[in-house]
């Protein structure tokens, strides 16, 4: 059927009409010999974005059976979607439509009416040339699998699994140890603001075992995961001798692999051996959980204890947020044990960000505890030499030392990131997609991070992040609903591709993979976000960005220089 291009120029009340001579635009374009052999319908309208304007446009498209549409009005950032929705109501494919900004970038920007009119004509001509080179694009509908794979059976993993599992959504929980619980199970008490839910972990474990929509794989780890949001083919393998492997399809993967405390043996400033009375805070928690009191290696109760904060903070380059809180908790253990223990607490900065933290510190400060703000500290077995913040150097000899080492990602985080192609933050935790707008997603849609593996934090923050992951999955991966991926994606022309993989290496979203048999790269249209970086990197122009092809851009460029 013959091409029929509809061009509608919005007067936008005075805003465009005042500074652009619309009649001259219509006259010049309809009489220009470039479009002699084409059927052009060019009409002004007072306000296209108003409701009557939309109905008028819909009628015009249907009555004239337009094959292409050009709207000359305001910025596409405001109303491109409005007119796309109108095209969707008609038979005209929404991608055979081009919007031209003649308000902000012509009428308002160029005071001289004559020049503004010239500019508008040039922009509209460019749009007509471009729209004729635009091709039909159909929005795909991918069916999605609602199930979720959660990696890590600590408090975060369990919380995510419990809040997501339902009849329509099965949750597979993979834990590398033989029991669930993770780090949180070795805490005797929680912080006062967490209202001593000592049996928190135990309750979660029983709830998981009773929930038939959650399938638990202990002593197992993720072997392989291939696919994209809504369709990950996943293999989970047991680490025991029989190495049984299970394969299933999930729609989303949640990484909740938790944290570990930084190994302090290697730290230059803290030389101590295995048998000295130097413990990390986690070891003290485990001792309290097991024995109910803090004792030296000899079994006797310590008379003097030194607590050292920010151990390894310079090496790791970040503050671990929660140590100030749990060191106060350890002081409360010691105070409950006996009031006569001499306690010296060495800290660099107090990190008390939660609204109740300062109060907790003030109550502990009232008890006989020597809080010393230091600028440097080194230990030799249980002998401490330190410089206070006012510069005076001192030494102290104590029965026991308790260290608060930096929180680091759990062992195995790097391999998991490698396997799933999820980028790591410079501090080696997982890298979130956007620290403020998408804090628990990753650059790979469908893969989420929560808890200790996201960054140093306490149990409350981890549980909050677990629920946030639930919020994201429940609103994006809805059982029975289709997923509509981005439609303006890139495609690689097999005949021109030489398999140099430059595009695969520059793609920030891992949307391009190399196909060794054919020796060419392939774009996964379900992951591609349509930025065009690969197109810009390909030396031979073998990649085409749909709706922004080089030929289409040439049409606009040609008009710009003629």
């Amino acid at each position, binding site marked *: 059927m013959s091409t029929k291009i509809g061009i509608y120029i919005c007067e936008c009340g005075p805003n465009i009409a005042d500074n652009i001579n619309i009649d001259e635009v219509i006259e010049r374009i309809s009489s220009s010999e470039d479009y002699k052999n084409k059927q052009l319908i060019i009409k002004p309208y007072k306000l296209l974005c108003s409701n009557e304007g939309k109905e008028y446009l819909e009628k015009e498209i249907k009555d004239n059976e337009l094959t292409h549409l050009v709207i000359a009005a305001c910025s596409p950032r405001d109303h491109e979607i409005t007119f796309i929705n109108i095209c969707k109501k008609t038979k005209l494919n929404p991608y055979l439509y081009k919007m031209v900004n003649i308000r*902000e970038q012509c009428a308002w920007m160029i005071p001289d009416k004559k020049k503004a009119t010239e500019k508008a004509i040039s922009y509209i001509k460019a749009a007509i040339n471009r729209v004729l080179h635009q091709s039909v694009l159909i929005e795909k509908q991918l069916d999605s699998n609602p199930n979720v794979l959660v990696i890590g059976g600590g408090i975060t993993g369990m919380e995510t699994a419990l809040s997501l599992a339902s009849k329509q959504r099965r949750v597979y929980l993979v834990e590398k140890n033989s029991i669930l619980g993770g780090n949180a199970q070795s805490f005797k008490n929680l912080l006062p603001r967490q209202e001593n839910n000592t049996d928190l972990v135990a309750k979660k474990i029983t709830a998981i075992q009773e929930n038939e929509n959650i399938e638990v794989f202990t002593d197992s780890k993720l072997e392989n995961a291939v696919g994209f949001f809504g369709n990950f083919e996943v293999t989970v393998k047991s680490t025991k001798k029989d190495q049984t492997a299970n394969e299933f399809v999930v729609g989303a993967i949640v990484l909740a692999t938790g944290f570990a405390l930084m190994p302090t043996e290697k730290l230059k400033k803290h030389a101590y051996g295995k048998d000295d009375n130097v413990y990390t805070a986690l070891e003290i928690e485990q001792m309290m959980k097991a024995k109910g009191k803090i004792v030296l290696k000899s079994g006797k109760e310590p008379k003097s204890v030194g607590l050292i904060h920010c151990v390894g903070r310079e090496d790791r380059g970040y503050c671990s947020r929660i140590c100030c809180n749990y060191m106060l908790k350890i002081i409360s253990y010691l105070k409950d044990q006996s009031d006569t223990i001499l306690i010296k607490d060495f800290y660099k900065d107090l990190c008390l960000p939660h609204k109740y933290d300062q109060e907790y510190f003030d109550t502990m400060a009232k008890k006989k505890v020597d809080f010393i703000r230091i600028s440097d500290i080194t230990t030799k077995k249980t002998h401490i030499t330190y410089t206070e913040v006012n510069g005076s150097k001192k030494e102290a000899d104590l029965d026991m030392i308790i260290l608060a080492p930096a929180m680091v990602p759990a062992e195995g985080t790097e391999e998991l990131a490698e396997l799933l192609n999820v980028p790591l933050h410079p501090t080696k935790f997982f890298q979130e997609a956007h620290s403020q707008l998408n804090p628990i997603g990753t650059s790979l849609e469908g893969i989420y991070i929560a808890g200790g593996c996201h960054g140093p934090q306490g149990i409350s923050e981890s549980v909050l992040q677990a629920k946030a992951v639930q919020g994201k999955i429940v609103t994006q991966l809805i059982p029975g609903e289709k997923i509509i991926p981005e439609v303006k994606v890139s495609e690689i022309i097999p005949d021109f591709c030489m398999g140099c993989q430059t595009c695969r290496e520059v793609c*920030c979203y891992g949307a391009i993979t190399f196909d060794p048999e054919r020796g060419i790269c392939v774009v996964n249209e379900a992951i591609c976000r349509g930025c065009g970086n690969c197109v810009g990197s*390909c030396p031979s122009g073998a990649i085409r960005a749909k709706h*922004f092809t080089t030929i289409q851009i040439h049409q606009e*460029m040609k008009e710009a220089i003629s």
Partner: protein
Amino acid sequence: MESNGKEKFTPKIVGYLCNWCTYAAADLAGSSKLEIAPNLTVIRVMCSSRIDFNLVLTTFFNGADGILIGGCHPGDCHYDKGNYYTRRRYAMLKSVFKTLKIDPERLQLAWISASEGNRYADVVNSFTEKIKKLGPNPLNENPYY
């Protein structure tokens, strides 16, 4: 054959603007009614990293007097690290033009964020002035090219 005098020369400048930041700054400049030279024609692309040096070369050799690439500030890119690649491609092309001394000033890369309407106006107006001083693209005047 030389075009007589610079004042009749109206530069034709092509501006490849990234949709999320610089194009938004252009809109803001428009809505704040800032006066901007009409010589620059805006071509909207989803990310400045879409513009490869092949496209810049074809634009330059087809007779554009100036080419402006507008992108988000490093770290602001909507597609994570696109603008870092843009900078390196641009720097490479700039180095070739500098070595060949074929008016490297006609190429310009500018980081303009969505809230910098007046910075967009300054960049475009100063770039247009510079191209006016530079004169037309030498290609447009050489009959034997």
